[in-house]
């Protein structure tokens, strides 16, 4: 009853571990059976290996965290060679999260992933922690349109475009991505944020800015998911601060086909299981046979 389908791919339930918070699943599989998840979004991959950012990488805010990891990852080839075979042993859907600084980088990444055993590509046009231009893709709709169109020309896997909440206009952004051929949309990535060490009189992060995630952003993320779901007719995967099954249901009612859980994994490592169980109990008690009955049923003013 929990199963949902995303661009023709069947998920056993709507709960996906969010990119960057779950590695490649291996570590969490030491805590619980990750095959129980609807899916896993890999750590953000780039064409070449990246060491990520210097300095402090995480800082706690009220009901949220700020991170500045900067896309540390082994590179796509190494991922396909070393990590993917291990991931494939889990019985869950694999979303390869792909980041990049230039269109060419994205395209080369897509080519490599085309022939791999992943299920879907989550195209991260929104990483706020990479300086070299990467940011603009997620901000300006027309630039996003270019990337997504080019990617779609060559992609052999379904493309789910992951939007940044820092986009100038999230609705327009989603419409442009849709027009460019995106198979699905996921949102939101982290919010551009900042913290200052008042004694050192310096930004806490070497990069000045960092990405805010966690419960703090939920009300804004939910609003964006609602707006985007109403604007496009491709599936939307919602995230941003989801910590309880109630949060997950809110996102589904707002229009999300499935949800991702990121920061909450740090609160309780097997929180995804609690969320899955909670969704199930809710469905039983509310006599919901299939999540499509409540998906996007919220209609406001």
């Amino acid at each position: 009853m929990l199963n949902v389908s995303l661009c023709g791919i069947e998920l056993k339930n709507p709960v996906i571990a969010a990119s960057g918070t779950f590695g490649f699943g291996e570590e969490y599989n030491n805590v619980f059976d990750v095959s129980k998840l609807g899916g896993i979004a890999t750590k953000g991959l780039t064409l070449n290996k990246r060491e990520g950012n210097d300095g402090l990488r995480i800082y706690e805010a009220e009901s949220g965290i700020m991170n500045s990891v900067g896309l540390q990852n082994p590179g796509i080839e190494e991922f396909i060679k070393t990590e993917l075979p291990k991931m494939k042993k889990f019985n869950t859907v694999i979303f390869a999260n792909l980041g990049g600084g230039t269109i060419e980088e994205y395209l080369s990444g897509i080519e490599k992933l085309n022939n791999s055993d992943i299920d879907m590509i989550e195209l991260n046009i929104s990483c706020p922690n990479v300086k070299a231009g990467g940011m603009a893709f997620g901000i300006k709709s027309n630039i996003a349109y270019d990337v997504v169109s080019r990617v779609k020309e060559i992609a052999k896997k379904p493309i789910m475009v992951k939007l940044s909440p820092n986009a100038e206009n999230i609705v327009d952004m989603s419409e442009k991505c849709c027009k460019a051929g995106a198979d699905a949309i996921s949102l939101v990535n982290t919010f551009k944020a900042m913290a200052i060490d008042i004694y050192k009189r310096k930004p806490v992060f070497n990069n000045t800015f960092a990405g805010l995630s966690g419960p703090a952003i939920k009300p804004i993320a939910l609003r964006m998911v609602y707006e985007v779901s109403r604007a496009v007719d491709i599936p939307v995967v919602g995230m941003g601060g989801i910590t309880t099954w109630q949060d997950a249901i809110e996102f589904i009612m707002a229009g999300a086909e499935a949800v991702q859980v990121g920061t909450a994994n740090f609160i309780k490592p097997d929180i995804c299981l609690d969320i899955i169980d909670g969704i199930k109990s809710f469905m039983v008690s509310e006599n919901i046979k299939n999540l499509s009955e409540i998906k996007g049923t919220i209609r406001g003013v």
Partner: protein
Amino acid sequence: MQYKYERVKIQSNAEVANNIYKLVIECNHEAKPGQFYMLRGWDNELLLGRPISVHDVQDGLTSFLYEVRGKGTKILSTLETGYRIEIFGPHGKGFNTNVKGKVAVVTGGIGIAPMYYTIKALKNAQIDLFAGFRDEVYLIDDLKDFISSSYVATNNGRIGHKGFITDIFNPWEYNLVLCCGPEIMMEKIVRMCRDYKTPVYVSMERHMACGIGACLVCTCKTKDGNKRVCKDGPVFSGEDVFLDA
């Protein structure tokens, strides 16, 4: 499942020195010296757990020695016997304690916390302890039975040498050095040891989120590239971290 996330009962939680608390919980994992747990003693007041090293394991009890620094350790310090907290671990690779010969354990401040359990496990070695403190000295008496000599320094000279522990540490005498404390002190020790080719292991601190190696927020640069303090560490070869990174 290698790591357990559990609610456990507090057996005791008392201030043992100014601002330093000892927390004892009912838990019978077989943690290794130098490993740590992510501790949570709150619901949604704070988001992340706090990494704290295993201070001792005995008779189904695990203890932690911690200094109150910010919000999390402050909340921990208020929790009373019988209260339940969440623990997640044990995490990381600890110290190799299967060693012989003369071992120096060098600590700064609360860096002494993991060394109690570590020293007790160094059964076949002859151990000298070099412990530096800001002002108040703690834990040294409890360690007497397990060590050959202890050398103490305090910043203000209240007890022992007035100054830094690095002032009185002599790297040439030891087959191995284990070190935990402020980075500036650990780096100094590593540099001192390199001159005499004495191997040093250091326990690193980084802010953490997942605690198990998945989120890459706790990275430490080493000779072999980025390592995760939570999973690949917290114990590393001192040279790899401070000299060849």
